[in-house]
């Protein structure tokens, strides 16, 4: 028998108490975990053996997923497990992706999507301010520049109009849209509304923070909006204001949750 196996190393790294740690510690840890997982992968390159290994440590790995562990680690693990899964399915003909998926399902007792939901801390991707009539973008807060927010704003507006018309008689407006792995929460204020695109759960804490911050922000800028004759030209200025405000929201969100 060997001494310390890669999976032991990984476990010992992950089962430390992170609550006291600073961000820099997290980064160090992340690097260590990465190295450890890489080692693990190199050593156990056969899918079946890897599955056995993970299976053996199932309970410890589930411990790892316990709520007190830092978000970083959780997201990181989810991502890594996903990657390993993918690599296994990409490189082996014997094992179809579904095969591997069901194997993982058996190991963790969860479907991949459920697992992500379990891990799913809310994370804001974008907050768009949209003109309710035209669907034109009035301002945005973006954490990544992957999507064309103009088009997304327009499409939301169309989807919202469609749904609102369809539910007209029930008297409630659409306010939470599911789109692939994303969720979109709508906050309506008269002629404008915000669409918050996020991943993870719409937890009560998240709701609380988001509602408060969007309300406060709207109070702050309402004069600006009224004074602005031409809404079609508001975007860059408003985006600056939104960036300032909602960067705080993200920080507060992380602090509150962990």
């Amino acid at each position: 028998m060997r001494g310390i196996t890669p999976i032991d190393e990984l476990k010992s790294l992950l089962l430390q108490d992170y609550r006291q740690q600073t961000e820099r510690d997290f980064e160090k840890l992340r690097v260590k975990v990465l190295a450890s997982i890489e080692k693990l992968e190199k050593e156990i390159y056969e899918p079946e053996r890897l599955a056995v290994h993970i299976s053996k440590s199932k309970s410890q790995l589930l411990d790892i997923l316990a709520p007190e562990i830092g978000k970083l680690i959780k997201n990181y693990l989810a991502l890594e497990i996903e990657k390993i899964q993918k690599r296994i399915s990409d490189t082996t003909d014997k094992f179809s992706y579904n095969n591997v998926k069901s194997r993982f399902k058996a190991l963790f007792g969860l479907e991949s999507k459920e697992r992500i939901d379990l891990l799913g801390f809310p994370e804001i991707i974008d907050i768009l301010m949209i003109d309710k009539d035209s669907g034109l973008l009035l301002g945005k807060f973006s954490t990544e520049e992957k999507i064309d927010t103009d088009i997304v704003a327009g499409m939301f507006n169309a989807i919202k109009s469609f749904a609102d018309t369809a539910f007209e008689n029930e008297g409630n407006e659409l306010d939470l849209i599911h789109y692939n792995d994303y969720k979109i929460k709508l906050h309506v204020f008269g002629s404008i509304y915000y669409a918050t695109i996020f991943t993870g759960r719409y937890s009560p804490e998240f709701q609380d923070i988001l509602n408060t911050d969007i309300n406060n922000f709207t109070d702050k800028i309402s004069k600006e909006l009224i004074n602005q004759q031409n809404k079609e030209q508001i975007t860059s200025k408003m985006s600056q204001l939104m960036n300032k405000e909602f960067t705080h929201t993200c920080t507060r969100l992380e602090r509150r949750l962990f």
Partner: protein
Amino acid sequence: MHEVRKKIILIGSVGVGKTSLIRRFVHQEFTDEYHSTIGVRVDKKTITLDDTKVHLMIWDLAGEILQNKAYQAYLKGSSGIIGIFDVTRPASYQLINESLQNVKGSQELLSIMVGNKIDLLDETTDIHGYDCEYFTSAKTGENVEEMFNLIAQKLVKKDEKFKRI
């Protein structure tokens, strides 16, 4: 350089070439997934005119206009409407001509009429009976850029006029 965003709507009978015209003009990022369900897809094209960047948000309405309740909502807040007909189908011209008047209603909307599929006609065909700004072909690309550019120009001009008043 300043930026404006403008919403424009494309209407016209099924098959006249609305979607094809947009495809010619913009690089599409979104799939057709929603198009058939909610009856509209939104695309964007940015045009630079002198010192103004115009982001045209182009709403491609599927199917017959005015029958779906949601369509009324889709029209809201638009600055311009392009009515498109198929030059080989005179009936599509009649229809869109009437729809355009209805859609415009009392709104201060810029509207233009466009006859598409001009590539299907030979030179001897008389097209003077059609009252429209442009004849286009989504197939060959003829006049497509020009048509959208004209819209952008007219919209910006309209704004300037408004500012002077």
